[in-house]
């Protein structure tokens, strides 16, 4: 048939079309249709839920219009799963929706492909979020949210740690990433001098309110704790805060001020089946139009600087990557995490469970 490594259903279908296709094969090879058939299927893993439909509209369809094929898998690419695949030599994923911690844990273990910046356009992402083993896909923030029924004025991050001023339970993520940064900002560390993180100082800050803090595991849990009034203030992802704001008709409010801007990253497992086609898919997903669609659907901020101007005015307030919002936030430093993630995360878990 047209090519040996064409493992797709399309090749089987063309096989069924019978002898005519076989005879005509040399001619078909050169036609645009054949080129389209030769392009491999790219399996993209995200964390499922609402992201399936949103990714389909924002990324899968535009790539299909260019003749490529992305298949979504919502099973969630945790570090351990990616490493198992790579070590067993049976990689089935091409692109994973991951984060800084994946770079930190899997980069040094040599389980990630280097991003091919001859295909992926470095000019279409902020320079600080284009890494060797991963490239930004969308932006998100860890922000302060509060229950306006119990906290009347707009609180600051320092108020989060002030139980006298605002009594009541607080909520943090069961992960050191972003939580330590926000502790330090609350304690007066300037946003541009956060790194290297003073973890002792951050833990000491949590200690002041520790008996009143609950820790969320999943994004859904963070929503439920705020929605049900279990906590009066919380540190959570801006996407979830945004959903809460809508659901509660504004009872839950949030601010980007003193938040931490973080990149969601595309990473490619070592030895991915689609090879370089994965990078063509990533390049396609850099188009601003799809990224704006994703913002409208889920609140994920566009990573392409050119997309910011395309964002409709009514969506700007919820866009973490909007220049006005970027200006008031700190930015995460991946290099520090690559060195320190594992031990910091473990120390954080030990600290909150003691």
């Amino acid at each position, binding site marked *: 048939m047209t090519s040996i490594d064409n493992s797709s259903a399309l090749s089987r279908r063309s096989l069924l079309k019978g002898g005519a296709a076989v005879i005509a094969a040399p001619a078909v090879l050169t036609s645009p249709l054949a080129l389209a058939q030769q392009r491999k299927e790219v399996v993209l893993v995200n964390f499922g839920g609402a992201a399936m439909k949103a990714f389909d509209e924002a990324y899968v369809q535009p790539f299909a219009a260019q003749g490529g094929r992305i298949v979504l898998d919502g099973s969630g690419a*945790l*570090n*351990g*799963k990616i*490493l198992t695949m790579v070590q067993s030599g049976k990689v089935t994923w091409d692109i994973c929706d991951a984060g800084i*911690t994946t770079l930190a*844990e*899997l980069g040094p*273990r040599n389980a990630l492909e280097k991003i091919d910046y001859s295909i992926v356009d470095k000019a279409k992402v902020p320079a600080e979020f284009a890494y060797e083993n991963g490239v930004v896909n969308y932006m998100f923030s860890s922000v302060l949210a509060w229950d306006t029924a119990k906290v009347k004025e707009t609180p600051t991050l320092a108020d989060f740690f002030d139980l006298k001023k605002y009594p009541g339970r607080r909520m943090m993520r*069961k992960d050191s990433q972003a939580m330590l940064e926000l502790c330090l900002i609350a304690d007066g560390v300037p946003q541009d001098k956060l790194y290297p993180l003073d973890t002792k100082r951050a833990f000491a800050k949590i200690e002041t309110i520790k008996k009143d803090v*609950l*820790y*969320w*595991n999943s994004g859904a*849990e963070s929503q439920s704790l705020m929605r*049900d*009034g*279990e906590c009066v203030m919380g540190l959570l992802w801006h996407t979830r805060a945004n959903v809460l704001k809508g659901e509660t008709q504004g009872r839950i409010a949030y601010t980007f001020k003193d938040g931490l801007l973080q990149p969601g990253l595309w990473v490619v497992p070592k030895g991915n089946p689609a090879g370089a086609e994965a990078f063509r898919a990533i390049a396609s997903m850099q188009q601003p139009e799809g990224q704006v669609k994703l913002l409208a659907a889920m609140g994920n901020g566009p990573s392409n600087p050119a997309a910011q101007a395309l964002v409709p005015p009514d969506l700007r307030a919820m866009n973490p990557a909007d220049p006005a919002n970027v200006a008031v936030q700190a930015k995460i430093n991946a290099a520090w995490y690559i060195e320190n*993630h*594992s031990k910091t*995360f*473990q*120390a954080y*878990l*030990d600290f*909150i*469970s*003691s």
Partner: protein
Amino acid sequence: MLSRLAAIDPAPTIGADPSRSSLARRLRVGGSARYWLLMTPALALMIVFYVYPISRVLWISVTEPQPGLENFELLLTSASIHKMLLTTARISVLTTLITLVLAYVVAYALVHAGERARRWMFLGVIVPLWISVLVRAFAWFVLLRREGLINNILMTSGVVDSPLSLIWNETGVMIGMVHYMLPFGILPIYANMRDIDQRCIAAARGLGATRSEAFRKVFLPLSMPGVVGAGILVFMFSLGFFVTPAILGGGKTLMIAEYIKVQILEVVRWGVGTMLAATLVIVIGALLAVLSRFVDLRKLFGSI
């Protein structure tokens, strides 16, 4: 139940059985060999699909990141692991004790209930077994939270002034775990109590014992094998709890199952994760070995 497997083990008596089947005699197969033969398919299945993969996983604990016992050294040196093991042990022991007390009461009531009432009571014991642990944890969340049903009732009836902290702590975790474990406590104790000859109690009463004396000196000792068996079962299950502590613990109750998950999936320290899994297997094995010296495990698990 899993106990069925253990129950089918008539090997010890078969050798003495004079009426051995003529077929077996013709085939000249020894009594116990015949049963080993029958067990072979199941045994092979277990080895291929259970023992082998588990051994491979546990093997990682002595090979990753370097060959050696350095992962096991952490059991002695890591403060983080010590704390987590203590939490796990504390919660498991308390859960087991509370479950046994409650299960004993329920089993006692079951044994002494009328036929019709018992059937309904059994339904109440068994039905929760069919409900997912996740659903049950969320149900407890609805009941126990600050503005939940229980706190609302207590507040409006004036019993308490401020909501009780029933959830997001070890109390919440234990409420959820005890609820989950109750059927595993009730069934073995019930099975044992059912076999106690009620005439013993009548005899004790006839000889002048008061009701409470007859219970303490006759019924309670006779029911102990069931209690010990239920205790082992509940304790072993408690050690491996994951969902309930994660949901009802407010993120502050770190037990061994969640700790292993973090090592395997997030910080990717597979050596440490598998070492803890191996430790869990060894501890449970050792526990069973020690207990088997005091109680007849076969009878225990076979008696459910």
